[in-house]
Every structure is written in structure tokens, then in C-alpha cells.
């Protein structure tokens, strides 16, 4: 997949992806999120650190994520998890994006008129 078009498509959906991943797992840290996305998409989609951390910080500022720091392998690691509001918001945003993608798919699969 083309990286630049990939990243522009990612922009709008990154926060939803983060919320979805955190819905699935109790808590995750930054690097883990990037790797999980890479694994799930077989390397087709990569999240850069420059996009990931501002998105995480924004979600935290909006009260959707909460953080805790633990010492792992001799260094501090910041884990993100969903707040109560985050859980509710995640469900809503995921449903919204899914509906949008469904509609987009209908348009993309438009058969040429005879």
C-alpha cells in the first residue's frame, strides 16, 4: 500500500483504531500499539510515533484514556487504558466508522451503468 495515501487515510481513523485496540486489551503502551496494528494488517499499515503519541495524548486530554506507569526491564513504561467514558465513546465511534466504511464500500463497489 502506498505510504503517503495510507497515512492520510489513517489520520481520520487513528483515534478509533486506538480505542478499538484498547477495548480489546485492558492496557497497552505506545510501542505495543504500533506493533499490534502492524501485525493485524500484515505490515500493510504502520502508525508512526509522530502520529501515535499526539493522538494518545489527545484522547487522554479528552478523558477517554487514563495512564499508569510501571517499571519494566529497568525503564518506565506508560500504559494506556480506557476510562468509563472511553468505553462508551469507543463503542459509539467504532459503530460510526463501521457505518461510514459500509457506505463507502457501497460507493466504491458501484457497478458501471450500462
Amino acid at each position: 500500500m502506498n505510504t503517503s495515501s495510507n497515512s492520510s487515510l489513517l489520520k481520520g481513523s487513528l483515534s478509533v483504531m486506538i480505542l478499538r485496540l484498547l477495548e480489546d486489551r485492558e492496557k497497552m503502551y505506545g510501542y505495543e500499539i504500533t506493533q499490534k496494528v502492524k501485525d493485524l494488517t500484515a505490515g500493510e499499515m504502520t502508525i508512526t510515533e509522530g502520529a501515535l503519541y499526539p493522538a494518545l495524548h489527545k484522547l487522554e486530554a479528552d478523558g477517554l484514556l487514563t495512564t499508569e506507569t510501571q517499571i519494566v526491564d529497568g525503564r518506565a513504561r506508560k500504559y494506556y487504558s480506557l476510562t468509563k467514558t472511553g468505553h462508551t465513546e469507543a463503542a459509539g465511534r467504532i459503530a460510526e466508522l463501521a457505518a461510514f466504511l459500509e457506505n463507502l464500500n457501497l460507493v466504491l463497489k458501484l457497478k458501471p451503468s450500462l
Partner: protein
Amino acid sequence: MLTPTQLDLLRLDLSGLANIEYDEVMTELLDHYASLTERKMALNMSFDDASKWAWAELGSGEGLQQIQTDYEKSIMKQVRVRHFEILKSYFRWPAFVTTALLGTLMYFTAPFISANGMFTVFFVCGLSPLAVLFYGHRKHLDQQTDKRKIVWTYLRESGSFIFNLFYVFGINGLDSLFEEKSKIWLFQVHSTIGLVLCMVVLLYAVSFIQLFKENFSLKLA
């Protein structure tokens, strides 16, 4: 797993080459940098090569600085929004009634107060936000945490702004009018306006204290 010395080297890269100065950003980026390095080292790459690869993967200095800039911006935005909310919460009927009562009292007592005395009181009021900042700086409150450093920057800018505004429009304007005591009604009116301005500035100074006490945690960015 990296050794403490290797972690220190990575930390040095982040602080020296990317100028990462906030602890929270440093914690997050160091962990990311170390995780990337470990991944390559697991494939038998040397620490030097693995860290070089990880550095490039992280976007080198510029990309990392951008993350820090975004962090600052995010926190600053939250501080600004919260400060506005605090100020808005002050301007309710108790503040209006108190100001109106004090204003009325000032209007009737102004003829008995000297112009110099009045000017001094107003000038001291105008300095109150800066006095709060000065006290905080003396106590090193501005250096306690990353977020407080950013809040402090906001307060410093905001404090200077309100003082300049008060000085230019309030003090300077009133000073010349105070000298003109022949028209006593004019003096009364301007003393009342000066008092209202003082109340606003004092509330502003109190808002600084409240804002600084709040715990922004990207619950500030």
C-alpha cells in the same frame, strides 16, 4: 533487555540530539526507542547498529521534537480552556453584587480620599497577578513538574498581558484624571471604574492560584 548503560546512551540521544526536556515525553519515547532497539538486537544486531536503526525509525531528531511540541501545545490548550472556565465561574451574581456595592461605596467615599492614595491602591491591585507569579517563582513552584512548567509559561504570558492592559488603560488613564480634582464628579466616576478594574484584576490573580493548583495530566498533553 538493555543494560542501564545502554539505556543511558539512548536517553542521552533523546535529550542531546532531539532536545527532549519533559520527563513524561522522555519516559514514553525512551521506552519506544528501547523497544525498537531490543527488537533488532534480538535478531543478532549489535547495540550500536540497532539503536541507529531505531533512531531513524523514530523519525530522528525532528520527528521527536515534533512529538514534544505537540505535547506542549496540547497542555497549553487545556490550560487556556481551563483558565477561561475558572474565570467564567467567578463572574456570577455574588461577584457582580459585591462589585456593585463596592463601586457605590467608592463613588460616595471618593471625595474624601486623596488622589495619590487612590492611585497607589489601584497600582498595587494591578500588580497582584505579577505578585502571585513572583511568589511562585521564589518558592520554585514553577519547576516542580513538566506540566507546571508549561502552566507557568502560560501564567507568565497571561499575567504580563493583564498587567500591561491594566497599566495602559487603567492606571495611565486614571492617573491623569485623578490630578484633575476640580471636577469632583469625574473623579468619583473614575474612582468607581478603577475599583471595578481592580476587582477584575484581583479575580484574575486568584484564578492564577486556582489554575496552578489544578492537576493537569494531559488530562493536560
